[in-house]
């Protein structure tokens, strides 16, 4: 019996900017229908990794595959079946949410876009925002509209960069449960980047710790917590990150 192909795969992915390595030989695979979290502090290489997986950024070495498609040679076939959201990349501010969703719905070839937008608006509780320009929304409202854009094409893979970064605790909890239900209902795969450890612990089937572009450790949150004898994922991360820093500096530096 052969294992099911991974929905997302990174093999030896590396990226340098101006001679500085920001992602260093990262390898992982995300099985279909699971949620995978890239964890790390700011500048750890999470967003860069996601951008390489999406084909928006070309890796210097290694390869990325999404739904079996090589993201260097065949990325558009994968992009048709995936979607991406980040609170740091807003939709055009002058257009209303409905106009933005119409444009992206048509870009993704969604049939009956108008009805699809109404359905998504109901699901995400953004009906009252549909005819408001995105530029006149709060950060949290923009995030919810951004999630609406992600759902337009019923994606098989969702790439989410800090999905709850600008949300109130209640909205964040609601979105986490919504995404979990969406995944269970559609068997979609979710790849998210975050530095919110409790969130990742609650949402993810597996996680990877990144620090200074290197993948320090990966596994299921519960397994990692048990293996390190800790109470939370955050404690594990701190231990792994400190250990790595110690190895990087060497005993002479610590003295």
């Amino acid at each position, binding site marked *: 019996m052969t294992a099911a192909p991974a929905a997302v795969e990174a093999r030896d992915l590396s990226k340098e*900017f101006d001679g500085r390595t920001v992602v260093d030989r990262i390898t992982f695979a995300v099985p279909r229908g699971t949620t995978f979290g890239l964890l790390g502090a700011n500048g750890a290489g999470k967003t*860069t990794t996601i*951008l390489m997986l*999406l*084909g*928006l*950024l*070309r890796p210097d070495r290694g390869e990325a595959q999404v739904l079996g498609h090589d993201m260097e040679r065949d990325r*558009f076939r994968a*992009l*048709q079946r*995936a*979607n*991406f959201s980040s609170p740091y*990349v*807003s*939709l*055009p*501010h*002058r*257009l*209303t949410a409905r*106009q933005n969703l*119409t*444009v*992206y*719905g*048509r*870009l*993704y*070839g969604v049939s009956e876009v108008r009805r699809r937008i109404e359905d998504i608006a109901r699901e995400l509780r953004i009906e009252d925002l549909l005819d408001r*320009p995105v530029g006149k929304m709060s950060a949290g409202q923009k995030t919810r509209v951004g999630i609406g*854009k992600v759902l337009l094409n019923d994606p098989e893979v969702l*790439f989410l960069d800090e999905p709850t970064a600008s949300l109130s605790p209640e909205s964040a909890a609601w979105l986490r449960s919504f995404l979990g239900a969406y995944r269970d209902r559609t068997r979609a795969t979710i790849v998210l980047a975050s530095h919110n450890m409790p969130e990742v612990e609650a949402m993810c089937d597996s996680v990877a710790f990144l620090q200074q572009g290197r993948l320090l450790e990966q596994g299921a949150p519960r397994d990692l917590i048990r293996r390190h004898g800790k109470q939370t994922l955050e404690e594990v991360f701190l231990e792994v990150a400190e250990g790595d820093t110690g190895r990087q500096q060497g005993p002479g530096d610590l003295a």
Partner: protein
Amino acid sequence: MKASLGRIGAMMTRYMYLYQVSPIRILELVYWPTFNMLIWGFMQEYLRSATHPAVFAASYLIAAVLLWDVLFRSQLGLTLGFVEEMWARNLGHLAVSPLRPLEFVGALIATSLIRTLVAVGGAGFLATLFFGFNALELGFGLALFFLNLVIMGWGVGLAVCAILLRYGLAAEALAWGALFVLQPLCGVFYPVSVLPDWLEPVARALPATHVFEGMRTVVQDGRLDIDLLAQAFLLNIPYALAGLAAFLGAYAVARRRGLLMGTGE
């Protein structure tokens, strides 16, 4: 093919929405062409009455203004669509959607064509109303002049987009100013023969130069010089391909350097 046209249509809808949410933008489309036409039209009327009547009997200044606007508006229309995505920080979203770079170019070109027709159409109407100049009297030549000028405008526009991709909005002024570097060479308002000898070959290497020379022949002699138009077409091919190659090359470099996500104000 159908999906591709659908994506081009989606991007055109995106640009048309901008006029729906900000109708004042329509004013921007027709403002300068209108004033340009009025100023040069009255100038022509004055010259016709104050100097040798034979020289200014033909309305070639008005025709020149109209055709220059075709060239300028086609370049500006294309470049502004691209700049709009930079202002909106939307390039990242577009780059991870199924929209191919060539479809993006197709949408920019189609939108530019609509903008050009609106802007120049308005100025052409004024030319008829105030100065009795009907551009349609240029006949079949008008269509060929128009086609040549918009192709050159798109070629230059794509090259400007390539520079914007590389240097970001710091190079934004080029969107409005790039073509004016070529204006003195194109012989828009005067024959190329008035240029210094050493500059003439440079001028003749530009497609638009042959269009404006051809326009003067039609307006003054009533004769369409096919040779001039053929030269314009032949020159336009490498210009358009170079513009497209520059854009696609800059897009590939932007992907390598991670410029697509961070581009914006």
